[in-house]
């Protein structure tokens, strides 16, 4: 293993780098796909052109973000094999079919209907187009379902047996898919994606309200986003708490690192902040609230909480990273809920569109979801070290027999390419978001213009929906 250590570290850095870049895009596009479906649905239902303008506005942004998600995701699907081939061989019989289902039920659905959603409105008419948008949104959720099942199985492996060549094989597929941490992680992540999108949409709406508080589209998106913040952020805090209790049951070492507990204790305090030191096994300069740790985790004042010293050093996650990233995530979650409550207050007073400080705060908070998602994933992924399959297969055993120079060269290439390409993409996204949303993108529902040389696609549902809407 020692001659492999260098390649191992490089492979880990490469995985962390590529997956961190990747998760940013799905975190946004899962939420945005659902938001687009809601906007189009509202447009078809109310015939309010503001919804259609917003749909067109965010659709173009979605296309760019989704494209970056696709290309960074293809990298992930091959990296298991190039850099983690031992892991791939051993877990393939279990994780492979789950990922196969992700491709079949999610990726094809998204990709198949994306073209129609982006380019096909005039060709298929509004109703079929809405169906395409719904399929894209459902596809992103299916994708989240399967990939979180995969990740959760690695965190809480159950329903498996080990065959004569050392592979994990399924003993009970139902148990594998719906493994103990899966439902919690799925809910937590989908809510996180929705919140991430809500804060981006809210921030963009606020930015344009600050420049023109009468802009109808900006008002609509700002209001919709802050409803989401007010409703979903508190739900997310509860979901996160329940997820944490589930982690305590299945991965107590991770929770010990999150909490910064080295010693097992009854009536454990809640450490608000400090500097964990794995060498000396203490948290320096800590600020703590007595008993609150036990109260949160065990719901009793003198509940026992295991400390990291209960595990041999080689089986512990690095406490400092987990400790900090967890606090970052929770802090942002609290700020999100606070902004949500503030917006309710302003809404109640009728100053939602006039309160400049609320709008400035919304602009400032626009990227907060991404930071929280990354911090959350760092917490859970670093917290499950030193294992890839928790308690069964270590990260060091999982790596491919690849020479360090190969991994080093590809890592450097990834860093350059990702910063250049996704940097440019982020620049374009920001530029698109800075464009004032206007209502001049009306689409005349009565007579879709026919493209020359294209056989007209008759749309029997067009006039019908028109009369239904009583427009």
């Amino acid at each position, binding site marked *: 293993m020692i001659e492999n250590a260098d390649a191992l570290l490089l492979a880990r850095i490469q995985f962390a780098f590529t997956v961190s870049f990747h998760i940013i895009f799905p975190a946004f596009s899962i939420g945005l796909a659902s938001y687009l479906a809601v906007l189009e649905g509202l447009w078809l239902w109310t015939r309010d052109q503001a919804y259609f303008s917003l749909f067109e506005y965010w659709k*173009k942004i979605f*296309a760019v973000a989704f*494209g*970056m998600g*696709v*290309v*960074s*995701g*293809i*990298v992930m*699907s*091959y990296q298991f*094999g*190039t850099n983690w*081939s031992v892991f*791939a*061989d051993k877990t*393939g*019989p*279990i*994780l*492979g*079919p789950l*990922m*196969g*289902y992700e*491709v*079949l039920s999610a*990726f094809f*659905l998204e*990709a*198949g*209907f994306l*073209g*129609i959603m982006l*380019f*096909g409105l*005039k060709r298929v008419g509004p109703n079929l187009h809405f169906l395409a948008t719904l*399929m894209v949104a459902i596809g992103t959720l299916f994708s989240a379902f399967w990939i979180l099942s995969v990740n959760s199985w690695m965190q809480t492996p159950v329903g498996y047996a080990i*065959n004569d*060549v050392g*592979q994990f*094989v*399924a003993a009970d597929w139902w148990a594998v898919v719906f493994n103990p941490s899966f439902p919690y992680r799925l809910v937590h992540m989908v809510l996180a994606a929705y919140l991430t999108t809500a804060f981006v949409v809210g921030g963009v709406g606020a930015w344009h309200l600050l420049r023109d508080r009468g802009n109808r589209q900006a008002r609509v998106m700002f209001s919709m986003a802050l409803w989401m913040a007010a409703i979903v952020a508190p739900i997310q805090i509860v979901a996160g708490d329940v997820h944490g209790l589930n982690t305590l049951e299945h991965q107590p070492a991770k929770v010990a690192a999150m909490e910064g507990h080295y010693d097992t204790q009854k009536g454990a305090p809640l450490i608000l902040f400090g500097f964990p030191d794995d060498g000396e096994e203490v948290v320096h300069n800590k600020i703590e609230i007595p008993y609150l740790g036990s109260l949160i985790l065990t719901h009793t004042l003198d509940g026992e909480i295991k400390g990291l010293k209960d595990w041999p050093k080689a089986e512990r996650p690095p406490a400092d990273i987990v400790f900090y990233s967890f606090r970052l995530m929770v802090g942002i979650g609290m700020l999100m809920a606070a902004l949500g409550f503030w917006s309710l207050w302003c809404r109640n007073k009728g100053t939602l569109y006039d309160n400049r400080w609320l709008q400035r705060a919304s602009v400032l908070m626009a990227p907060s979801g991404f930071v929280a998602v990354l911090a959350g994933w760092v917490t859970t992924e670093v917290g499950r070290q030193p294992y890839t399959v928790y308690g069964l297969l270590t990260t060091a055993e999982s790596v*491919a*027999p*690849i020479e360090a120079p*190969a991994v080093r060269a*590809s890592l450097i*290439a990834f860093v350059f390419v*990702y910063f250049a*390409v996704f940097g*440019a*993409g982020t620049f*374009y996204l920001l530029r698109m978001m800075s464009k004032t949303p206007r209502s001049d993108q009306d689409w005349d529902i009565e007579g879709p213009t026919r493209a*020359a*040389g*294209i*056989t007209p*696609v008759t749309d029997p549902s067009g006039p019908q929906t028109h009369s239904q809407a009583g427009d």
Partner: protein
Amino acid sequence: MDFLESLDLPFVWAMLIAAAVLLYVLLDGFDLGIGILFPLIREERHRDLAMNSVAPIWDGNETWLVLGGGGLFAVFPLAYATLLPALYAPLLAMLLALVFRGVAFEFRWRTKRARWVWNVAFAGGSTIAAFSQGVALGAVLQGIDVVDRAYAGGWWDWLSPFSILTGAAVVVGYALLGATWLMLKTEGPLHDFANRVAWVTGVGTLALIGVVSLWTPFLHPQYFDRWLSFPAILFSGVVPVLVAAMTVVLFRGLATKRDLSPFLAANGLFVLCYIGIAISLYPNIVPPSISYRAAAAPDDSLLFLLVGTSVLLPIILIYTAYAYWVFRGKLDPDEGYH
């Protein structure tokens, strides 16, 4: 369920994965080909048209590549775990190239000043991706060194004159697919341009197919037996005869300026080459030592995925066909959402 259980699951999956990879080559081949031809298209508005001809469908096409990789992981994990480290450099080059070309579809429309950057990214990315796929194919054909369920070679083993040749063959072949696709989708000057390119790339593709075909039997005794020993030659000899027939269809279609027949003939050439490769390799999935049977996941895993696949795959094919149907016909130069 009972019917599925009674099947020879590794064989069924070998056929399914082979079909998925073939579909990938055919579908993404022509849209990579558009990228390869991009520098040859002089006028910017013609480039717009060429890109728009594949914009609504490229993402679906590339998903077959994810299915190929993901499917291999799922049903032939040992093949996945040995092929991917062996093909490390070409695969990573392909992935990075696909990043550039994938984002170019959107980025190119988001800037005027830097449009040339994304033109280069689209053309370079498409060409490198195609070349890497060809190199990977050549590297697999020449054999992968596996010891004790792990890749045992070095990280430059893939590089050889043969793999460079197969890389070039795939680039030229995809360019042919792209040119015939453009003929199908465009009119006027761009159509004429595509026709001229199809002539050149058609000749080039056939020449490269010829060289690769003559070289392959000498890579490994098994390939030699499959192609040149009696009585195997009676069966495998059908392939070159069909290639000749496709060639006639291709060039006759080009000469009479037909739209559809050159595209179908070019695809037919790819199908025949693919069958030829399968004849060489079968039953190995990682030549020369691992058969698809040895690489297969346990039957239980194969069955679990097959149950869903037998439902989902037909649905996928239906809505993929529908998406192609929606965007059928010649392109309207004034249409496009950008």
